[in-house]
């Protein structure tokens, strides 16, 4: 499926416009574009800060995968929860986190979301429903099922989204989690961001079925494949899955086919894929470009509006980095704080 909506494929006022144009108001759609820019520029800013030695450790960038994070989180409230992955900056921002506090976390500062204890790989914002990125591939899957069990038991009506990569689908935790979610009909949506590789190992080399969504039938849940670079397609699949979950019909597995532009982490020499492959995705299927041209086509935004968004995001990123730089370091004396809950 082409990432760019074909001219004339949908009428501007017609019922056959893509899902999000029928379902969300223009403000919301412009905000979705803004979030995609925020994710990309956040990660570019983080990458640059890393190169300049301001951030240590490593990080996993999701540049190129913004449509899946934003499309999935578009219809969620702060009460709906997500579990995220090592490639989780996009999820965190899409769910509503403040990039200043994210930068502060990456800089190891007390003002960071995890007070400097977590860093990129454990970024979380519980207040907007993000239960956290995870350093363990597949680690979030059972936890998401547990969160969904809470939602069911407490009858909150909330849903839980579990993000994971194509590599994670070969962990036992994936299979155990999907099975339990299905037998208990829990309000959880499993979202596989299939970017083609787990580190260097392609899906074809690592997974016995051609699509991750094919696994869904083993757990008696719908398995939906979408172009993960098309916001509307992602959001539509998510909308259906959310309805199903909220109606007590149980989980759905959504597979977003996407691609990461950057290496796996900071140590990647890109020996397992060709330059041409990367080029092709970047030039032909960029999710932000695709979304922009679609938004313009449907009259949601014009070139000026796009420029304004880019500029305001640029300022927000700049201010975020500044905030992080100026924030205080944690005190070594507090090293053991937060291991256990402080009791009065």
């Amino acid at each position, binding site marked *: 499926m082409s990432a760019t909506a074909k001219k004339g494929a949908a009428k501007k006022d017609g019922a056959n416009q893509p899902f999000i144009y029928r379902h969300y108001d223009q403000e919301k759609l412009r905000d979705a574009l803004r979030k995609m820019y925020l994710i990309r520029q956040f990660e570019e800013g983080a990458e640059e800060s890393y190169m300049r030695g301001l951030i240590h450790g490593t990080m996993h960038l999701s540049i190129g995968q913004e449509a899946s994070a934003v499309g999935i989180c578009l219809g969620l409230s702060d009460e709906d*929860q997500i*579990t995220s992955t090592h490639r989780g900056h996009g999820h965190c921002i899409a769910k509503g986190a403040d990039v200043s506090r994210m930068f502060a976390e990456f800089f190891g500062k007390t003002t*960071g*979301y*995890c*007070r*400097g*204890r*977590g860093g990129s790989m*454990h970024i*979380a914002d*519980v207040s907007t429903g993000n*239960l*956290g990125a*995870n*350093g*363990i591939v597949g*680690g979030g*899957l*059972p*936890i*998401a*099922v*547990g*969160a*969904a*069990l*809470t*939602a069911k*038991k*407490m009858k909150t009506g909330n849903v839980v989204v579990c993000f994971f990569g194509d590599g994670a689908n070969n962990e*036992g*935790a994936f*299979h*155990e*989690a999907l*099975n*339990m979610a299905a*037998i208990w009909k829990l309000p959880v949506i499993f979202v596989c961001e299939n970017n083609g590789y787990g580190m260097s190992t392609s899906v074809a080399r690592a997974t016995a079925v051609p699509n991750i969504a094919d696994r869904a039938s083993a757990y008696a849940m719908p398995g939906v494949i979408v172009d993960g670079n098309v916001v509307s397609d992602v959001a539509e699949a998510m909308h259906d899955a959310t309805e199903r979950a909220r109606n007590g019909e149980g989980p759905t597995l959504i597979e977003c086919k996407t691609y990461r532009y950057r290496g796996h982490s900071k140590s990647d020499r890109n020996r397992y894929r060709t330059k041409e492959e990367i080029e092709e995705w970047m030039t032909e299927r960029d999710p932000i470009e695709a979304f922009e041209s679609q938004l313009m086509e449907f009259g949601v935004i014009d070139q000026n509006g796009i420029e304004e968004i880019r500029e305001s995001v640029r300022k927000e990123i700049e201010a975020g980095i500044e905030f992080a730089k100026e924030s205080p370091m944690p005190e070594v004396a507090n090293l*053991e*704080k*937060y*291991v*256990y*809950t402080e*009791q009065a």
Partner: protein
Amino acid sequence: MDAQVETATRELSYAQAIQEAMAIAMERDERVFLMGEDIGVYGGAFQVTGDLVERFGTDRVMDTPISELGGAGVAVGAAVTGMRPIFEFQFSDFATLAMEQIVNQAAKMRYMLGGAVSVPVVMRFPAGSGTGAAAQHSQSLEAWLGHVPGLKVIQPATPHDAKGMLLAAIEDPDPVMIYEHKLLYKMKGEVPEGYYTVPIGKAEVRREGADLTIVATSIMVHKSLDAAKQLAEEGIDVEVIDLRTIRPMDRQTIIESVCKTSRLMCVYEGVKTLGVGAEISAMIAESEAFDYLDAPVVRLGGAETPIPYNPELEKATVPQVDGIVKAARDLVTGAR
């Protein structure tokens, strides 16, 4: 006095005491629920949950698939989002399949998130040898978990403590791992009615003595008390401390005792090397009690072998009363 609200007592088995604690907790707090393999109509592999499913229904006494990793993770996820799950491992050995969720997730989530969440999950681990179940169903791996900051690890030795410490564990905002020796399940003891808690992190002096401090865990508390009785007839006066919690460890009670008796022996069922006794010994070596020692510290732990099937071999694998008596006598009389 441990118990906060003690009323009348009656005799219950250790398993019954745990069951009663779970029932009381579920009645007091609707967030509490049980998860585990065959804990519903079957009643649990050791009949600890028994007929609770009849009283509380399958939503609160949930049978899980045979999925230790996933099940433990579901409990963690439920705990983080506001429930109070009690997760039963069918055998403690199977926790090896769930180490990821216990060690990487439950123990670290609060810390990694800078205090933004707590993980009030309780996990129960039927442990120990003596049932002829051989190498994969008899281990005592509590020291594994005792090594992990973020967890609390307890080993109640009596029905009274099993109930009171489980109720304390449920109240606790952090993950509490309960190691229950399978041979204790049938053991009877006086158990107060109603709600009470026994604090986590407090050791208990079970027998006072002047010549030697034995720090024991779980079933070894009873073996050490039996040994102490025999030794008393020989004029050797043993103090027996029931450690009860291995993380956080009650260092003060042990230090005070060793300062008094000048001798220390650690008795535990887990493999001797790198076990609970190593920590107690090192802790004493680092403390003011070191100057009071009149003899080397002795550790009696499990043999450096998997638990064998043959009953004679199995017994030889872990400390027994005779061995404790002999080691204590040698230590006190300077024969070693």
